[in-house]
């Protein structure tokens, strides 16, 4: 029950963001595709080219299309900053808006071109015959007659956009997809179901209202068109209400796509709320995206791990030792990006190769060196990023690791795959509660090929000197040990007596000296 109550409590925020995004994308899409379609209906060549282009866009997986806009906008923002002295937020609303706008275009283009190009020649002839200019013929005769078919295209586009908008979450745009991505991550199926049902219900309501408008246009019933328009305005207005008053600047807290990050995000939010700073969270961001987003000011604060910054952002392959790495990161982030590194939280969440204890024992595997001897007969499972990260290349080269097969999973499904025997080795996380819960054997790294992964608190350039802000967060430094973090993580991961990240965050807060 409490899960449903918690899901409900997020609905106003998620729904308003979802509606605002979908509506903006649809309106922008219409503003572009209607004039294009009108031009295209008069030229066979242009029409063919446009429909082909929109068709190609449609074949790009929607998640990839959304993801591609982030680096594109980031580069553009860098360019405008250098050339004209202003930049813009490349994360969140803008990339999602542009991708969804492109997505919305095909049905509108196709229906409008088909309706206009296929119009009864006699009617167009009559329009010219009574003395209409081509423009008057379009506005007074062709568009009104094509309206029901165009409306059907708009309906299709609306349903697509509302559905696809759930995929905007990983590019940092809050949507009903937050339920789905977070729910999938923490195995909270109430959340996932809630997100799916909410998005479907929204799509259904909008579809019915647009169908009413379409029908009203077809039978020339002004009352129906007006009723549909009023219904749409009502839906949009009602869902946007939570945004009113929530305006003004909010601190954006970033989080990657796993439990620990959600929990720490909630801890940070709680601390800032206490000193009267309004916050909002951007969850489920990729490792590289989140750091660049911080540097660009798209997010204001998040927790990263020293090894990740060392290998991915700084592109370092050498291993000078834990203290030296932390020191170098603090200097480098400040110097190159103006980012404030508040320091380590007190625990490490390292990438570590882990096996089921029974299997490790049977094969006499204790270290990565032992593993290398058997790797050719073993399958490895990893998360979505590890195999393309430099640390992986370093450790694989150091030990000569070569596996029979590689599979990639959502982190929590990865543990399942190991337990069920689908894979033999996984790239586990050392602070993960499930390492202890499942009695996994973490293989030691005698050559020190894997970097340290101290959790560190990073603050955006804009707040690097914000003393009240920094003071609220400083008590977190050195305050969370590995055992405590593992227990908090397990609260969210475990199947029985499962807690939400917010609940785990409250528990964790209780453990931190104030």
């Amino acid at each position, binding site marked *: 029950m409490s899960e449903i109550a918690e899901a409900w409590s997020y609905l106003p925020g998620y729904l308003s963001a979802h509606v605002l995004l979908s509506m903006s994308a649809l309106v922008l899409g219409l503003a572009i595709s209607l004039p294009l379609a009108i031009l295209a209906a008069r030229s066979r060549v242009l029409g063919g080219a446009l429909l082909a282009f929109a068709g190609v866009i449609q074949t790009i997986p929607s998640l990839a299309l959304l993801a591609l806009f982030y680096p594109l906008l980031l580069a553009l923002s860098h360019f405008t900053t250098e050339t004209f002295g202003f930049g813009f937020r490349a994360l969140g609303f803008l990339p999602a808006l542009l991708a969804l706008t492109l997505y919305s275009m095909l049905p509108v283009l196709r229906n409008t071109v088909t309706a206009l190009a296929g119009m009864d020649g*006699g*009617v167009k*002839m*009559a*329009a*010219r*015959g*009574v*003395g*209409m*200019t081509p423009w*008057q013929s379009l506005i*007074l*005769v062709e568009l*009104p*007659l094509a309206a029901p078919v165009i409306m059907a295209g708009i309906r299709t586009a609306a349903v697509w956009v509302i559905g696809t908008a759930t995929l905007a979450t990983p590019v940092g745009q809050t949507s009903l997809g937050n339920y789905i991505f977070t729910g999938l991550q923490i195995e909270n199926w109430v959340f996932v179901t809630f997100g799916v049902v909410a998005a479907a219900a929204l799509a259904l309501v909008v579809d019915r209202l647009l169908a009413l408008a379409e029908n009203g246009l077809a039978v*020339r019933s002004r009352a129906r068109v007006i009723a549909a328009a009023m219904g749409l305005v009502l839906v949009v207005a009602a869902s946007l209400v939570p945004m009113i008053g929530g305006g003004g600047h909010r601190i954006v807290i970033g989080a990657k796509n796993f439990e620990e990050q959600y929990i720490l995000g909630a801890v940070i939010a709680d601390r800032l709320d206490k000193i009267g700073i309004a916050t909002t969270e951007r969850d489920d961001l990729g490792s590289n995206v989140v750091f660049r987003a911080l540097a660009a000011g798209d997010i204001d604060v998040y927790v990263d791990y020293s090894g990740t910054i060392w290998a991915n952002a700084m592109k370092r392959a050498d291993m000078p030792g834990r203290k030296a790495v932390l020191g170098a990161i603090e200097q480098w982030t400040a110097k190159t990006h103006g980012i404030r590194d508040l320091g380590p939280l007190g625990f490490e969440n390292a990438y570590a190769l882990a096996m089921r204890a029974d299997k490790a024992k049977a094969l006499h595997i204790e270290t990565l060196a032992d593993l290398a001897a058997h790797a050719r007969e073993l399958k490895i499972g990893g998360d979505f990023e590890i195999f393309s990260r430099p640390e992986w290349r370093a450790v694989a080269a150091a030990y000569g690791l070569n596996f029979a097969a590689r599979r990639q999973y959502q982190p929590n499904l990865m543990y399942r795959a190991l337990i069920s025997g689908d894979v033999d080795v996984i790239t586990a996380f050392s602070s993960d509660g499930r390492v202890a819960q499942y009695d996994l054997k973490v293989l030691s790294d005698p050559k020190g090929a894997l970097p340290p992964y101290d959790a560190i608190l990073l603050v955006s350039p804009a707040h690097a000197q914000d003393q009240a802000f920094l003071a609220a967060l400083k008590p977190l430094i050195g305050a969370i040990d590995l055992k405590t973090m593992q227990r908090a993580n397990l609260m969210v991961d475990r199947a029985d007596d499962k807690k939400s990240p917010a609940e785990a965050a409250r528990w964790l807060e209780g453990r931190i000296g104030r």
Partner: protein
Amino acid sequence: MRALSLAVGRGEFLVLIGESGSGKTTTLNMINRLVEPSGGRILVDGEDILAGDAVGWRRRMGYVFQGAGLFPHMTVAENIGVTPKLLGWPKGDIDARVDELLGLVRLAAQDYRGRLPRELSGGQQQRVALARALAARPRIMLMDEPFGALDPIIRDDLAEDYRQIHAALGLTTIFVTHDMTEAMLLGDRIAVMRDGELVQIGTPNELLAAPADDFVRSLVETPKKRARRLAEALRAAP
């Protein structure tokens, strides 16, 4: 179209007749500049209409299309008022004109103003199309088989009504048909076309008396032959 030379007098009712593809509709469309001729001149009151603005020219003449060509999304009143509206008439003038025209084509204004074309019979649609063509007080009317799709009684009614309107308003009408009986009943003169050429032009009596060739002869004799056969058939009946 081949070389075509045709003169129409003011107030005249000229019928263009010929088989399908003989160039009747194309001739009509060139006069309205819906089709631009590749050469030659079209003079109205001595003015070369090809030199002026086509859209403005179309608003000055009436055109009744084959199969009415009413705008399906507009009411009867909106259809009739479309050209005056394009010309920027005040709303009150348009409303008054619509009522006047509905009376002229014998449709009760209060019953028909607000109807949509699909709520009308074929004959009523054609009456509305006629009213629409007359709306902006044209002096020249172009009619392309306007009654072709109607059943015979309605067709005769409408044709007779229009012939009276033509006379009462002092219109110059160019009327396309492929029905020689209709042509002879309506036309002051008849122009016979074949393969894009004008074969012969003259009053019904002139065509009957001196047909230019066998084609014209068989065309003009058809109505007489049919009338004779009809009379015989009726006499033979008990």
